[in-house]
């Protein structure tokens, strides 16, 4: 006999999947009929890219508690790797895009593993400073990358990347990222990650291998960033080291904290709202005070932090992201 809660569980699942498909269909129709024009399509895609990247940082910082100020570096590694592969292959099709994204993610993950092993021993602020240092070193490497691979363009920027990212890809990958993250944090390793955040010494004393789980969280989060970077590269078809500097790492951190630490729903909402507000202010504000856009935005930030220090969602989740125990 099938239990009642199980049926209820299944119906919510179907409802959520239906909602996700319908939401996609509506947006896709609006886009193909040009009600949402190309400019806004690109912005919506960018919001998706930021969501993936921010979910990665949320795994590292929100769930595992490892303060990282160098997330944009992994984003950049993914972007450059993926762009490099597709540009040197001299042909492009969907299959190659997938290869590029996977390669970008894996390479970012490998670098995260190598850098994470030594620096994840550091705690809180010191870890933040070390990752910040890593981010700045990576930016210098991007700036000088043309000395080794002229294709990468160095500080002149990398041009001529095939524009292959579309809304369908971004939507699909955001969906996958959310599902992977939700299932991960509700699994045994996920609980280990959270225990490391709550108290490293206590979790070590009950047998959690903290080094292993810190590295795991860091690597998976960086893989998300790498994949997002790959999408970014093929969205704007132009890469510049400036797009991966310290301030971009801060942007991702802002999204995670504003959305609420350790809240998947919060990160999604915050990423989308953040991108749309920054662009939206450009549209809403009259020409004369357009410069004020970047003055208003930090003020909003300060006000949100003063009145809601835990972020907008602070630890809450949409219902479908909750894990329902199977009886």
């Amino acid at each position, binding site marked *: 006999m099938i239990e009642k809660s199980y049926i209820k569980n299944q119906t919510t699942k179907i409802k959520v999947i239906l909602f996700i498909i319908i939401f996609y269909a509506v947006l896709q129709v609006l886009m193909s009929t040009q009600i949402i024009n190309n400019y806004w399509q690109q912005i919506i895609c960018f919001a998706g890219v930021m969501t993936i990247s921010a979910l990665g940082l949320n795994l590292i910082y929100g769930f595992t508690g490892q303060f990282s100020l160098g997330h944009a570096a992994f984003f950049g590694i993914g972007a450059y790797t993926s762009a490099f592969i597709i540009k040197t292959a001299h042909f492009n099709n969907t299959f190659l895009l997938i290869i590029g994204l996977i390669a970008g993610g894996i390479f970012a993950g490998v670098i995260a593993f190598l850098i994470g092993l030594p*620096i994840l021993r550091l705690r809180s602020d010191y870890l933040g400073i070390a990752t910040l240092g890593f981010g*700045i*070193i990576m930016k210098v490497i991007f700036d000088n990358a043309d000395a080794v691979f002229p294709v990468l363009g160095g500080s002149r920027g990398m041009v001529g990347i095939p524009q292959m990212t579309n809304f369908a890809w971004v939507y699909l990958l955001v969906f996958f990222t959310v599902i992977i993250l939700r299932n991960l944090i509700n699994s045994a390793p996920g609980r280990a990650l959270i225990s490391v955040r709550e108290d490293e010494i206590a979790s070590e004393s009950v047998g959690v291998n903290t080094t292993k789980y810190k590295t795991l969280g860091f690597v998976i989060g960086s893989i998300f960033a790498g994949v997002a970077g790959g999408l970014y590269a093929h969205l704007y078809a132009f890469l510049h080291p400036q797009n991966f500097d310290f301030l971009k790492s801060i942007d991702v951190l802002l999204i995670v904290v504003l959305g609420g630490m350790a809240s998947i729903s919060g990160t999604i909402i915050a990423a989308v709202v953040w991108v749309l507000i920054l662009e939206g202010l450009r549209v809403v504000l009259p020409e004369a005070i357009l410069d004020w856009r*970047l*003055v208003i935005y*930090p003020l909003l*930030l*300060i006000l949100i932090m003063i009145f809601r*220090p835990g972020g907008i969602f602070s630890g809450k989740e949409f219902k479908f992201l909750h894990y329902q125990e199977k009886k």
Partner: protein
Amino acid sequence: MLLTIGSPWLIFLLIVFYFFLLLVVAYFLQQVINGLQLGSVYALIALGYTLVYGIIRLINFAHGDIFMVGAYLGFYAILRFKLPLPIAILFAMVGCAAVAIIIERLAYKPLRNAPRIACLITALGVSLFLENFCSLKFVFGPNYLAYPRPFPVVNFNLGQVTISNIQIIVFFVAIGLMILLELFVSKTKTGMAMRAVAFDKNTAQLMGINVDFIVSITFGIGSALAGAGGVLYGIAYPQINPFMGIMPGLKAFVAAVLGGIGIIPGAMLGAGIMGMVEVLTSAYISSTLRDAIAFLVLLIVLLIKPTGLLGESSIEKV
């Protein structure tokens, strides 16, 4: 034999070698002097980071922008009001202290008991606000400005090494301010209160110390030093814009961490090392790799001694 003792060839070679050595050493000394100049400015900024971190454990990302405000205040003092340099520095110091205290009261004080990340994000917000607000046309404007020099540059040649009067001023003003700070912190009653709050905020409050007042004072003093640093930076590297504070701010912060954050001599040591590494990298390796090497040094020091060069390692208790 060509090279027997006393052979004219050997003497000639020795003379060539001597001059070569002289040039190499002179070049090195020249770079050390340039490094000291940069290091002194970094030290002035780093002290503000270290003081604030020592007291409320906040990485005050807006500090680099206070430095920028100081540079602009000095700019207007020298150019518009035609003030002499010492008065201009004083003006920038007072102005920066005022700005910082206002910021502290409005933005940081409501968050005294909030999670630390909220304070950090607020600091980032303040930083972005200052940068973009100052870029507005009616404030400082977004463009690069050439910094006025209140007096002509005089170069003193000591053999192969050149020292300019600006380098001497930067160095001695920085050292002087640091000595004043050290005296203030170690000798005065307020300085003692600062140390007490840094050691244990709650106990200090129980002993009747007005913690809020001390935090404000700390912000003020740190920012005054950054303001002086801004003016000195302006006359030493004569170009300013509203985003000039980001990189020196970060590097000064790193210098503070390098020496051991929260420790005043540590900030000076770290800043000296940072300035030196940066200048020597530019001189001997490549100026494009300057930032990378500087931060590599930080990573190595953090991995070997996570609390910084002068920091005491603490054992984490359960």
